[in-house]
């Protein structure tokens, strides 16, 4: 095995080790240092991962860790999201004491997420899940003097602990049935296993995965945690655990539950339909941006899950998921970046603070509008192309009813996205505040817009690249 193939993990792990003491040590102006190092590290990871896209798949550590196209694509998505989150966190916490620990926590969470994309071993899966979750609690609790943040962190901690424990319990069933922790061995071993036990194990395991990707009914933590956390952290939670969870779920189903074992596509399809409908229905009644985006991210998890449900029968599904996540990261992080900007300027993310934003800050308002239109799936933005590919995969996978439910949901979702755009553009402001467009925000916004527009207008190159996934 080539050690080179582990370069991203090594960089992330090494940086984590260096940054922990460094973050505790830096004072004053030096607080930016861990963040800068994290940025550089993520950048190096991105380059290294991108270089590996064309490599032949490698199985490391006796087949328990896969370095294949599938993993590389998810790693790219995760690393890019983390890179942007670190940048946003540094802007958000500029000159405050949280700046240093925030960067470190993101690094840990990213290492966990990246590891999940490659893990083919039950032990590793649990380990990396825990690593990602632990770092996320820290991120949520960054604002130590902010009561809602602490409540949110506690809630997150308890829910995650229970969900992951249930999942681990389910995983032990698989070990009991097959005597192996390796997904591939489990996949072949389960052929002669008792269907009832497999179904029971599947349900228990789905609790854990469902928690990370906010599959209903295991999504209840998300809105409160998002609302309690700061906007950059909420953005991170909306993207990275979801992408990592999707990667882990896909690998688990495709390698460990071969031949649609225990009817998992149907389970996932039902879960997807419930998740998107619930997410959209509740999002209709929100009146805070972060809460709304939390519910909308639950709905988006539903769209993605319906494609996971057809992943085994339809080869194009993987590329569709990869594409959607790539677009999703830009539009979601863009929207949360605006949320962060607004939170700093007004101290609130309510619709009232958003009202008339186009008059205070036309540029920021434009970014928010484009991100929301993209989330709503309006062409020629990334969200549109993504939805087309998802729907095409689901139709091709012959789950036509599910596709129709998704389309009805997308119509429903229009209402709340457009409601915000209406607040921003069609009403006069109620609060007076200034929200200057600084260079750092401008850079972040432009990269989000470039992603949204670029992927939307010219999806060909990325789709061609995503062929390495299957």
């Amino acid at each position, binding site marked *: 095995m080539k050690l080179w193939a582990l370069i991203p993990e090594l960089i992330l792990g090494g940086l984590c080790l260096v940054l922990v003491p460094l973050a505790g040590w830096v004072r004053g102006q030096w607080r930016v240092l861990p963040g800068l190092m994290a940025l550089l590290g993520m950048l190096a990871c991105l380059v290294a991962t991108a270089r590996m896209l064309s490599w032949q798949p490698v199985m490391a550590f006796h087949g328990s860790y896969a370095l294949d196209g599938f993993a590389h694509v998810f790693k790219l998505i995760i690393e890019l999201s983390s890179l942007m989150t670190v940048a946003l966190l540094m802007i958000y916490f500029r000159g405050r004491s949280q700046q240093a620990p925030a960067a470190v926590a993101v690094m840990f969470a990213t290492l966990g997420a990246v590891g999940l994309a490659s893990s083919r071993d039950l032990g590793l899966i649990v380990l990396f899940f825990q690593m990602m979750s632990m770092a996320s609690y820290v991120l949520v609790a960054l604002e130590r003097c902010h009561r809602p943040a602490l409540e949110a962190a506690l809630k997150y901690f308890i829910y995650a602990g229970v969900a992951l424990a249930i999942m681990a319990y389910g995983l032990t069933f698989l070990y009991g049935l097959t005597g192996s922790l390796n997904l591939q061995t489990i996949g072949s071993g389960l052929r002669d296993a008792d269907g009832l036990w497999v179904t029971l194990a599947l349900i228990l395991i789905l609790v854990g995965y469902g928690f990370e990707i906010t599959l209903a009914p295991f999504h209840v933590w998300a809105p409160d945690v998002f609302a309690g956390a700061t906007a950059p952290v909420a953005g991170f939670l909306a993207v990275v655990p979801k992408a990592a969870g999707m990667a882990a779920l896909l690998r688990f189903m495709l390698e460990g539950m071969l031949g649609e074992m225990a009817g998992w596509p149907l389970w996932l399809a039902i879960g997807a339909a419930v998740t998107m409908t619930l997410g959209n229905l509740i999002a209709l009644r929100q009146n805070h941006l972060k809460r709304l985006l939390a519910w909308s991210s639950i709905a988006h998890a539903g769209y993605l899950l319906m494609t996971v449900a057809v992943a085994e029968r339809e080869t194009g599904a993987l590329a569709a998921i990869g594409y959607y996540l790539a677009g999703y990261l830009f539009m979601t992080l863009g929207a949360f970046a605006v949320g962060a900007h607004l939170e700093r300027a007004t101290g609130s993310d309510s619709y009232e603070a958003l009202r008339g934003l186009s008059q205070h800050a036309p540029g920021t308002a434009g970014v928010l509008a484009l991100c929301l239109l993209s989330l709503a799936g309006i*062409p020629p933005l990334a969200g549109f192309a993504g939805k087309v590919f998802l729907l095409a995969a689901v*139709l091709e996978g012959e789950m036509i009813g599910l596709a129709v439910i998704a389309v009805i949901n997308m119509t429903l979702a229009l209402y709340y996205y457009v409601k915000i755009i209406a607040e921003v*553009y069609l009403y006069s402001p109620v609060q007076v505040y200034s929200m200057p467009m600084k260079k750092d925000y401008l850079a972040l916004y432009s990269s989000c817009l470039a992603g949204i527009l670029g992927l939307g207008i010219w999806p060909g190159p990325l789709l061609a690249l995503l*062929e390495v996934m299957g």
Partner: protein
Amino acid sequence: MLSLTIFLPLATALVVLILPRSRPFLIRWVALAGALLAFTAALGLLTGFDAARPGLQWRATLPWIPPVNAAYDVGVNGFSLALILLTAWLLVTVMVYVLRNDDRPKGHAALFLLMATGLLGVFAAQDLLLFYLFFEVGLVPMYFIIGLWGHEDRRYAAMKFFLYTRAASLAILLSFLALYLLMEPHTFSLPTIIEAQPLAQGSTAGGWIMLGMLLGFGVKLPTVPLHNWLPDAHVEAPTEGSVMLAGIQLKMGAYGLLAIMLPTMPRVMLEYAWLLLALALISLVYGALAALAQQDLKRLIAYTSINHMGYIMLAAALAVLAPTASVQALALNGGIYQIISHGLLTGGMFFAVGVIQDQTGTREMGRLSGLSRQATVFSLLTGVLVFGSLGLPGLSGFIGEFQLLGAAVSWNFGVAGVTLAALVITTGLYLRIVISVLWGEPHAQAAAMREPEGRKLAILGSLTILSLLLGILPSWLLGIIRETTRGLAAG
């Protein structure tokens, strides 16, 4: 050249966006120049168009999303060329109309130009995914136009417009995706799909795909019972928005019905033509009766749009049901003529209502009377538009209705009877406009009416002259669309 026509407005919009905010007139003039350039380019398309040659011309293709076989593929036939010319000219008139308006000119001009690119693209796209993309680019700016520059209840109307039309688009998208997946190898290419005819008669998939498209295009057309968004959108939209909405946007539905639905699934349509026919007749009668009940002049014209679009639906139904190809072609000719004529006449009437409202501050028909005494030229031009709409011979509206009625008579007297009844109601309706608004003793509020500025008269004049020309020399437009209708009828 075709791509140039499509993207000139977009390029102008980008130029407008970088112009300084402090120079509203510069922005307006640049926008107008861009519109004129686009119209010139469209005229260039016309001069290079060989009307005797069937099939697509000015075709340009470029790979767009190779993994799913979607391409940037544009081309025109006679029908789409006529619509492109209409779009480009209405864009010019809109830009002339708003020339002195400096209410946030930057966003206003940019949105209209962006919308124009979407609309022009819709009529040229030969790839279903590209069609959908342009379709949405044509729609979304209208939300902002209604919401930002509209009247009192603009936010409500804008939201309603957006939700209705987007839900409709998603139904279209699902149908397109289903068509794409039925093709082997998968493709979005419209000519390929038309040639391959993937849908058999009596197939369940065919029924669903047909319903999806009917729902989508029916909302946009709009046909009863999917028309509910239209009156609100029209009443709340600013004048120039109403003109683009009635003049062009409704035609996207008509175009989709005639140029996409009919040729891609003629055998399925044969099964469901009764549905189209029923919707058409209901829209014809309902639109006319509902218009009769209106007091608000703008709302009245909005309802007559529903009636007029009923003719298009009727044309689509007749094009399938009529026994001979010549009657089918007659119905299609009538439908397409009606589409173009409605764009000119209703566009013009919305301009006229805008002028009236600007000057008198009301659209209530009860408070408007005797306008002809205050503004003779304006009333004359408006009168011609009104008579054109009621189908007076010599004006463009007559040709379309006449051909459709002819096709209906030669197929079924009952259908012709209902059409004629609707025609009688609308005649009364339009005469009411002439009598109570233009003629008679001036109402106190109408005393504020003055002859509008020259540029507004020029807009109205250009539309009446075009309507007259099309009414007197129908062979000109019929010549352009002949090969298209022949192809559609033969399919």
